């Protein structure tokens, strides 16, 4: 389950909010009630074998051979995505599925796997982010007249809501995984407060903590708290090891990010934590991803690229013209060929440290398939250019300094 920055609860971390009509705010509804009752219609839709519209991202990912969130969740209960029908009957939750089916989609369970969006407080303003997820970008877009000021309504800033939420976690049998994101997770006080509460209540010994950071903050106190947990998974956000990262994850500088990346790699290794590189491939980064794949291959670090970007639409890699898509595909194929010519088998566990190279190849191959076969959305380039021109006027930077081969593409839309 997911709680978003504004306190709105959703059935899945990968669901598309605008296609998901089942939501409630933690201010109004207890998470238990939302999970056990409000989510019933979603379960019933799935039980009938119908596609729930908000699952679209996962369906598209699977279409291109990319490991989807849905598949990642399936394997956690022993459903084999390659043999769905045969393996379904022995999944570890089958009796609970049955119970839910007999009770109109209701369940007596509580969520054991959460994505917790703490809020939008963030010190970076990534070019592909939205005002809902970054306070810095929100301020900039407001100043540029692109958005109304809006209202900051982060749930984790309210101690009573944090307490309410932690109480749910404390009452959850076999609580398994909590993944925190921001904004920037480490800037948000709620992260430390929740970790302290979990330790105080002894929940740290039974659950795994995951969090994603933008590689700008190092907090010894939080590191010490994390060491008390059963298992830790660190997600580090970076798009590429080339300088275009400066443009994409503005105002973070790639050299600073690299140094911080090394620190986190060392921290993870010394504590036997999992570390994965988290990327959000966009129209501007997909052509430079190979540098990151090479780093990960060399340092035995797994990579988890996001779903094929949904919003902003004009940032999707499918907006690229054919010539850049083809060059990118060739770069990715070269990477795959340098490291074994093909993935030996699709690895659904993107955190499998014993099979890192195969995880990387599986991901790279999905991007090759996607860029080779996706719908042409180059008509969105006008929106892209309008947007970046405004941002660049505020940031005093130029995309062509980093991606000179994009000149014809961008100039064609008035850049």
């Amino acid at each position, binding site marked *: 389950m997911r709680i978003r920055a504004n306190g709105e609860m959703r059935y899945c971390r990968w669901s598309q909010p605008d296609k998901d009509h089942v939501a409630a705010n933690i201010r109004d509804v207890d998470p238990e009630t939302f999970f056990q009752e409000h989510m019933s219609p979603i379960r019933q839709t*799935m*039980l*009938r*074998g119908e596609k729930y519209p908000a699952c679209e991202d996962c369906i598209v990912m699977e279409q291109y051979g990319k490991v989807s969130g849905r598949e990642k969740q399936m*394997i*956690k*209960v*022993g*459903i*084999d995505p390659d*043999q769905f*029908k*045969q*393996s*379904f*009957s*022995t*999944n*570890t*939750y*089958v*009796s*609970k*599925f*049955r119970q839910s*089916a007999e009770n109109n989609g209701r369940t007596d*369970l509580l969520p*054991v*796997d959460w994505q917790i969006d703490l809020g939008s407080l963030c010190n970076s303003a990534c070019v592909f982010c939205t005002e809902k997820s970054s306070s810095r970008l929100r301020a900039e877009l407001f100043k540029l007249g692109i958005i109304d000021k809006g209202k900051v309504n982060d749930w984790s800033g309210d101690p009573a809501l944090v307490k309410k939420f932690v109480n749910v976690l404390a009452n959850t*049998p*076999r609580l*398994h*995984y909590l993944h925190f994101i921001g904004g920037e997770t480490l800037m948000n006080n709620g992260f430390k407060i929740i970790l302290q509460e979990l330790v105080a209540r002894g929940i740290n010994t039974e659950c795994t903590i995951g969090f994603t950071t933008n590689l700008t903050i190092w907090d010894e106190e939080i590191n010490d708290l994390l060491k008390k947990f059963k298992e830790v998974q660190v997600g580090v956000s970076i798009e590429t090891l080339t300088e275009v990262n400066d443009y994409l994850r503005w105002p973070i500088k790639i050299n600073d990010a690299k140094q911080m990346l090394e620190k986190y790699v060392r921290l993870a290794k010394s504590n036997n934590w999992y570390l994965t590189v988290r990327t959000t491939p966009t129209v501007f980064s997909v052509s430079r991803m190979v540098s990151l794949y090479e780093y990960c291959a060399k340092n035995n670090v797994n990579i988890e690229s996001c779903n094929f970007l949904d919003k902003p639409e004009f940032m999707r890699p499918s907006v690229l013209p054919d010539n850049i898509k083809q060059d990118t595909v060739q770069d990715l194929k070269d990477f795959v060929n340098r490291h074994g010519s093909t993935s030996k088998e699709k690895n*659904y*566990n993107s*955190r*499998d440290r*014993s*099979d890192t190279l195969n995880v990387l190849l599986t991901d790279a191959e999905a991007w090759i398939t996607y860029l080779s076969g996706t719908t042409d959305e180059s008509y969105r380039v006008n929106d892209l250019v309008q947007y970046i021109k405004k941002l660049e006027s505020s940031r005093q930077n130029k995309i062509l300094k980093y991606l000179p081969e994009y000149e014809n593409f961008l100039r064609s839309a008035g850049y």
Partner: protein
Amino acid sequence: MKTFYDLLDTRSRIGYSCELISLFETVDPDIVFEINDKVVHDGPLHETKIFNGTFDADTHLKVEIKLHGKEYNKDSVSAVRLNSFVVDDLEIKQQMTNNSVYEHDSPGTHATVTDHIGWNGTWKFDAGMPFYHFKHKIKNRGWLITPE
């Protein structure tokens, strides 16, 4: 496609295919070969043979190969070797071998994990869990969470 409602009432069966190689110079190896407590071969194995069958998805796969009556001075080569065990298109022979127990009449000198059954005794494998849980484990798919 079947709905989840249908799937909840479906007992799936999983297909397997197993190849046993017969090794001998003069005397065929005499074996009792059981899969999931069912004898699929009892007697001398004259030649390499493939055994096909199915089992319920919730069955814990168990394989037992018993070699008996071997007279070492007559034909020391006489043995069988598990060459392949494919379940649902997945070759699991190596993982079966790694998790096997072989109790035989020369334990002091030959105690290694093996797919070669050449001593009088019983070679056993027990997955100890439904097949797709076993597959999850050998594929290193990470957490397998349970409600209780």
